[in-house]
């Protein structure tokens, strides 16, 4: 991809051919110029889409009607391509549809840059993209699926009727749900067995001389595996060329932000400053804090100290729930003094950093509280640390004990551990929310510790005030999104600026206590 300032010949493939169908394998990278704001917007919106895919994937059985409806509405909302109604042929071509497909194409490749860097990121990205592809592919009718495969040079050979007749009994007995009629009416594909391993492994396919004979209904599995393999290889390659990309100063902060980003409310706007008093914190920590913050608070109380990672994660969270700078200074000082730190040392070494958190020092940027994604993915805790996400970073046995101490029921603990085993850390936390608040179904999708706090307060009768305040910032973001790219650009630019600076500055500035 080239960016403004460098002249490069724009691809001369005509529009209609470039994006002939609404889904694609992303084999070819985009070859055009794009503005930075479009770069950011496209990426942020695709990230939102993939997060929706992730959430739907764990809260619904994939490909059921509710799943499809919700995913389709999100695709519409974010202006990504989706299968139109059959009779709506007009919308399949033309500039509007073209724009959507172009966005789909470009945004995918941008996210590759951000998500190729670590094993965790890659796994997440591949999982969501495969699920999204599965959704799109299964929305097509078989004829369209075949057309798609051919267009992408996947000439899985079909077998002739003669061969079908000869192999009829074997074919019937090899695949589930294939009757004699189906054999003759539907297509069967002949594929080298190495390309159909999932079917071979379970002996769900007929094998002859090294070829698997796959009924059309099973071809989805094959295509998905193909998609997954290609994407995996592509990400590995992308990672190798990353240093070149990172050398572009405009891109590096953006890409970092994307891979750590929480797309949505960032709780930096505080409407309820000063509404919390310090003596409420202890009881709040048991009632409304997510497990990570409860843990940090407890460690702070017990050890009268927290290391840097913990101070950042907890300190910013407290700012997010409404602590003012003065309150924060008082809070930390009171606790640290109980430990090995005297008042003078506190003022010298720690006060500065707290003021920095509130944007009163140095570059004066107002740092935003960490999202779940950031807590889970970056800066894992080591010996002596108490930060991080307990569902991700604690040994399951210890997590179990902790939950028992916090009086979570045994069946609840098991449910949580199951989610942890499936790497659904935020869902595990959400389950923790439900169990500690005694409700069946939390009506939100958890992705930020401060969100946990607000939802909890709402539930416990925190009242309309907090609810209104929570909605307002979110709506204002959505408004700017609909206003056009400039609005989103501003908001996105602010957040990206914040987070970029946060990651860059903090690391270099602070030292371990």
């Amino acid at each position, binding site marked *: 991809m080239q960016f403004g300032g460098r002249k490069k010949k724009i691809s001369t493939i005509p529009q209609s051919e470039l994006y002939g169908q609404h889904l694609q394998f992303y084999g070819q990278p985009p070859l055009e110029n794009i503005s930075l704001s479009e770069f950011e917007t496209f990426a942020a919106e695709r990230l939102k889409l993939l997060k929706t895919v992730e959430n739907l994937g764990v809260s619904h059985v994939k490909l059921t009607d509710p799943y499809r409806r919700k995913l389709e509405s999100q695709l519409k909302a974010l202006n990504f391509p989706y299968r139109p109604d059959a009779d709506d042929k007009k919308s399949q071509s033309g500039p509007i549809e073209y724009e959507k497909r172009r966005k789909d194409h470009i945004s995918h490749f941008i996210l590759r840059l951000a998500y190729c860097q670590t094993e965790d990121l890659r796994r997440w990205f591949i999982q969501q993209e495969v699920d999204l592809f599965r959704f799109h592919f299964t929305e097509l009718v078989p004829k369209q699926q075949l057309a798609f495969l051919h267009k992408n040079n996947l000439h899985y050979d079909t077998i002739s009727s003669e061969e079908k007749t000869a192999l009829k*009994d*074997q074919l*019937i*007995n*090899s*695949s*589930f749900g294939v009757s004699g009629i189906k054999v003759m009416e539907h297509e069967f594909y002949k594929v080298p*067995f*190495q390309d159909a*391993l*999932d079917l*071979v*492994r*379970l*002996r769900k396919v*007929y*094998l*002859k*001389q*090294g*070829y698997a004979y796959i009924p059309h209904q099973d071809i989805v599995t094959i295509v998905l595996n193909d998609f997954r393999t290609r994407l995996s290889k592509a990400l590995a390659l992308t990672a190798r060329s990353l240093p070149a990309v990172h050398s572009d100063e405009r891109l590096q902060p953006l890409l970092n932000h994307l891979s750590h980003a929480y797309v949505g409310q960032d709780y930096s706007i505080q409407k309820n400053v000063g509404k919390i008093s310090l003596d409420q914190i202890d009881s709040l920590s048991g009632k409304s804090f997510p497990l990570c913050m409860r843990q940090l608070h407890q460690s702070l109380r017990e050890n009268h100290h927290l290391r840097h990672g913990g101070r950042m994660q907890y300190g910013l969270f407290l700012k997010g729930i409404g602590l003012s700078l003065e309150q924060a200074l008082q809070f930390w000082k009171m606790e640290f003094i109980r430990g090995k730190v005297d008042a003078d040392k506190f003022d010298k070494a720690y006060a500065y950093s707290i003021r920095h958190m509130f944007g009163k020092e140095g570059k004066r940027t107002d740092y935003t509280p960490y999202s779940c994604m950031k807590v889970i993915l970056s800066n894992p805790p080591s010996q002596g640390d108490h930060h991080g996400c307990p569902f991700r970073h604690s040994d399951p046995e210890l997590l179990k004990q902790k939950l028992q101490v916090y009086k979570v029921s045994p069946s609840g603990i098991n449910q949580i551990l199951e989610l942890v085993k499936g790497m659904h850390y935020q869902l595990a936390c959400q389950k923790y929310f439900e169990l500690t608040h005694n409700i069946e179904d939390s009506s939100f999708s958890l992705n930020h510790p401060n969100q946990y706090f607000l939802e909890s307060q709402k539930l416990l009768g925190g009242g309309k005030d907090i609810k209104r305040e929570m909605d307002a910032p979110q709506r204002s973001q959505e408004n700017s999104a609909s206003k056009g790219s400039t609005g989103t650009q501003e908001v996105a630019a602010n957040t990206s600026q914040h987070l970029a600076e946060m990651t860059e500055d903090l690391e270099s500035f602070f030292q371990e206590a």
Partner: protein
Amino acid sequence: MPSSDYDPASLPDLLPLYYRRLFPFSQYYRWLSYGGVQKNYFQNREFSFTLKDDIYVRYQSFSMQNELEKEMQKMNPYKIDVGAVYSHRPSQHNTVKSGTFQALEKELVFDIDMTDYDDVRSCCSAADICSKCWTLMTIAIRILDRALQDDFGFQHRLWVYSGRRGVHCWVCDEAARKLSVAARSAVTEYLSLVKGGDETIKKVVLTEPIHPFISKSLEVVKEYFSRYALHDQDLMGSKESVEKVLALVPEDARSYLQQEFEKEKKPEKRWKLIKEEALRKQSTAKKGQYFENEIMLQYCYPRLDANVSKGVNHLLKSPFSVHPKTGRISVPIDVSELDKFDPFSVPTISLICEELDRPRPGEEKEKLEDAKEKADEKDAIEKRKSRDYKRTSLAKYIKYFDQFLDGMARSWKGERLRNSDLQKEF
């Protein structure tokens, strides 16, 4: 019997003789070079040796046949294992940047061990084998060889007697050697029907539809079942054995059969009752109706060691290696004469060493011919060596190995031509 002459203590004396005059180095090298189609294929192959006093050395590699010969003649390994072809010479793996030394290719291999059948054979257990339970190996080879050829399209399959209680299969096709770990694992799962450990009573469960692979495997089992299971293993004879079999039958059928078995004592008739009961179930029940087939498979179907097959870098005992405990040579098995194969007539190292020293009829004539061909010294040594093993019981096995290599050589030639065309070599 020649085997009774073998004494493990004599290995240190026999091995040098074996490696100097009998081990088929040129055939071995011919095999592992695979026609020189791929550069450094032999050089990057890992071997491991087990030396005297159980000293184990890995990452052995050799640049040419005579280097391999010299090393083996120097070290006199008790056991030889063959591993993968790596990205670099295994002997230099420590000099390679960490992470870049990788196993690239290896034959697809299978290891069938008689001890895995201990729960279903009554004649022997553990390391013992006899002619009665050897049928299990015959069945295994028949079933797996057919599947590897017909289902997977593999043409070059070498079955080798392990030397004591099992068999190995080396699938040498190029496609097989290039298989990924995931592919090897998938092939192994496809071929596995007996699942479960000591705690699992019913190890084979069949559900509709019955895949053609299972039907074809059952056909093989049925060929041998009557003689092997009913007669040799006396499956339906002893009370203990019958109980174990009936444990695999659904409860309602079980009580009926137990009753009938009070009256009917003949094994064949008892099995017939089981078959009839199964048939009856098939027309009425929705599940549990294949128990007759399930029993046959549990008692006879091949049991694979999955770990051996899945890894690209897994080391497996080499053909023509000696088994230190039995002295038997790991010889290739002629699949066309499978039913005639007798593990107890496989030559031991002591036997063939003894045969070396025995004068043979016609030897005088050979000595004259040797004197005539003094021209090429090296050639003469080779010729003498080839006459050496030809005087022993090892001859027919090496001949079979030669035929196996000839079969593969045809494909190598094609490959070499293709490659030289691509590189425009003339």
